[in-house]
């Protein structure tokens, strides 16, 4: 049948991405251990000691995750005070989370790391409540 309505068609890549991200999540979940989290806490940037292959793989996934709702470090006062925020997409104000402030970027970045793990359902606290969807 000829194609007459573009609304009938969608990008099937989404089907693959659902499968891929579920599979990737299973792989990543096995990598996220207390030791890996401690490794990140000790050196979030990997400038002192190169990150392990496991942490590198997890970090690439965290950076490459879709934008909307993604936790990030908000610079409230440069080099003095940081907070956590969540991106909302172009044209929409990010949400700055009330509560804890961080007195160093290093601490804030580790908090972002933990928040993104939780957001993607990869936390180690047993509360893997959110899906990781592209």
């Amino acid at each position, binding site marked *: *049948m*000829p*194609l*007459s*309505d*573009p*609304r009938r068609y969608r990008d099937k890549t989404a089907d693959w991405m659902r499968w891929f991200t579920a599979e990737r999540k299973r792989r990543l979940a096995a990598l996220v251990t207390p030791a890996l989290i401690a490794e990140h806490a000790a050196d*979030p*940037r*990997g*400038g002192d000691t*190169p*990150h392990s292959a496991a942490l*590198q793989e997890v*970090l*690439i996934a*965290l*950076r*490459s*995750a*879709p*934008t909307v709702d993604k936790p*990030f*470090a*908000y*610079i*409230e006062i*440069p*080099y003095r005070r*940081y907070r956590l*925020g969540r*991106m909302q*997409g*172009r*044209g*929409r*104000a*990010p949400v*700055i989370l009330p509560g804890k402030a961080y007195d160093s*970027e290093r601490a*804030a*970045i580790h908090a*972002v*790391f933990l928040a*993104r793990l939780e957001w993607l359902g990869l936390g180690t606290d047993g509360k893997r409540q959110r899906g990781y969807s592209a």
Partner: protein
Amino acid sequence: MNPIGLRGYCDRPNVAPGGTLDVHVSCDNPGRYSARLVRLVNGDLNPAGPGPRQRTIKSNIDGHYTGRKQYTQVGSYVEVADPKALLAARGSFALHLFLWATTPAPRQGIISRWHDQDGRGWLLELEDGKLCFVIGAGKKRQRISARLRLFPETWYSVTVSVDASRKRVALTHTAVVNSTNSRCGPVVPLASDGRVEARLTASPAVADVPLVMAGFASGEGTQVQADFNGKLDAPKLFAGALASADEAALAQGLLPALPRLAHWDFSAGITRDGIASDDVIDIGGHGLHGRCVNLPDRAMTGWNWDGREEHFVHCPEQYGALWFHADALEDCRWPVAFTLEVPKRLPSGVYAVEIEKGGHIDQIPFFVTPPRGTATAKVAVLIPTFSYLAYANTQVLQNVPGQAVMGILTSLDDRDLELNVNWREYGLSTYDLHSDGRGCQYSSWRRPILNMRPNYRHEFGAVWQFPADLHLIDWLTARGTAFDVITDHDLHAEGAALLARYNAVVTCSHPEYYSGAMLDAWEQYLAQGGRGMYLAANGFYWVTSQHPHKPWLIEVRKGESGDQAWRARPGELFHSTTGERGGLWRHRGRAPQKIWGTGYTAHGLEISTGYVQMPDARDPRIAWMMKGIAPDAVIGDFGLVNGGAAGLEMDRIDYALGTPPHTLLIACSHGHSANAMLVPEEQYFAHPGMDGTQDPSVRADIVYFTTAQGGAVFSTSSMAWCGSLAHNGYDNNVARLTGNVLDRFARNGPLDEVC
């Protein structure tokens, strides 16, 4: 979040003493703000560095001003003045155009002579993906809507015919897909053509508005709702209704035997030097020429592009399209808030207009050159204003691949968030995509550029470009070196004669965007005894055109290879403003290695390292350069930019790309991370290990070679280099090596040849 409160821009980046600079300001809330002139030395807030340094300069702008929120017209469109209302479509008339919509779903005007507030005139629009034609005389309106939706990025021939005598109105859309012009090709069994016809029940009232393509007039004023995303080609209006045979002929590019009211040919005016014009030519005979607003992409493949010719200059008849974007912005066009009269004795340097209101401060940088035709020092710092433009208001926050490139979890400040939320009013950089997915190819100085501020830290997690370049200004100032400031805009205009006034010319950290005229200038200068210091990396990379009539604009088309934020579509790599091929200079036979010995090889944005010395470092002919540096010392394993002098982006030698055979390889950086990657143009077969832990090409090289007539080139090949100059109170081996070279280069008399 703390809104930024006020922001401004100046009309151009460079000014000589005695000249003037117009400043434009918009405040979120009305009220008084203050203004002053400051000289900038350093801006980086990093507590490990020297900190911000600036000095207030007395000038004519000192004082208070009344500010308010300024309107910014966003979105590209064409307007045609129609004072005799020839296009008001009274009686029978018809219109035809070719249409290629990228986001057909939301409401957007295609072509109109329409007063939206009152509903007067006529309007062809898209709504819910369907074409609609509207005729209105206030409350009495008629709307005829297509039954089928358009497929995106698919060329259609669209006709509207109004037969006043038979009281009929018809709307058609016919796909005109070939193998190359649309997203999909002829194998797709498309059945989206349509024809609707209805009894004519209204006639258009004449509104005091222009004809608008890619939008419609919001009201009587000059504001236009310009939300169309996509291409238009060959729009035309006829005095008379169409027969069905006419509709079929128009879809084949033929003209019916009807008098034309107007016929706009977007390719008219193409020359060998491109089409650097806002003019839209009416070839219909009535002289109803139009004017582009906010720079629709020009020299774009049209409905009939068949892929055999890639250069619009050679085949203008297939490049009749303009590509409009709802978020394009050429010039904020705010009124002048005040004009700075640059004092005649003001030393060349980096300055800013500082405006302040209610605790909010904005600093609007600009560059004061020496008096025209003169030099006031033996050393010049070349400010890369073309590259500042290319990066102006980058939106990496929204760019998932961008976040992956960084190698860090990013931190963002209020300016990043402001750019994210209100991006339309700030315009995009050449790193961004328009809302319809097309890369942004034009960038303008005439808008607030929030990421070109002295204390801004890039989303990459380090200072980048302008604030990073102040590290160099700070070091030169701290050591008491007399220097002039010149800009890319000066170099493009004046050429080698500008550089020839100096014994030595020093680049800033990232002169990535270059015009051919600027490359010519460097080559001539260095070949005739000039001395160049390339304290940078990823320089001289993207072909960049300056608009020949609007020097505040540049054009860049990315594609084929390189660190590409986007890729020009097939057939669209050539610049509209100059007609020259875009992409990398490397692919046009002008790799950076030919001028500087090194060229872009890798980026490592989260960790910087130091350099290990190579055997040439002990060549007695350059002992003067290495004086004070221990033979076994690592050079630059410290610094404000990610902890080292070698990082962010890096260059290396490559003899096949033109590194001079007599180049001395003094040092190479080592120890880069797994996030440091070989750049795309260095990758042929993709394979594992193209990173800083395994690939020997992921490095920065320090090189030196001499040129004719006592000239020389010194390249450090790293964007992070200048961030190490201030380490340990400016007493370190990066500062020492740089100082040794600068002092020797600045001295009169030829350098000893090293061949």
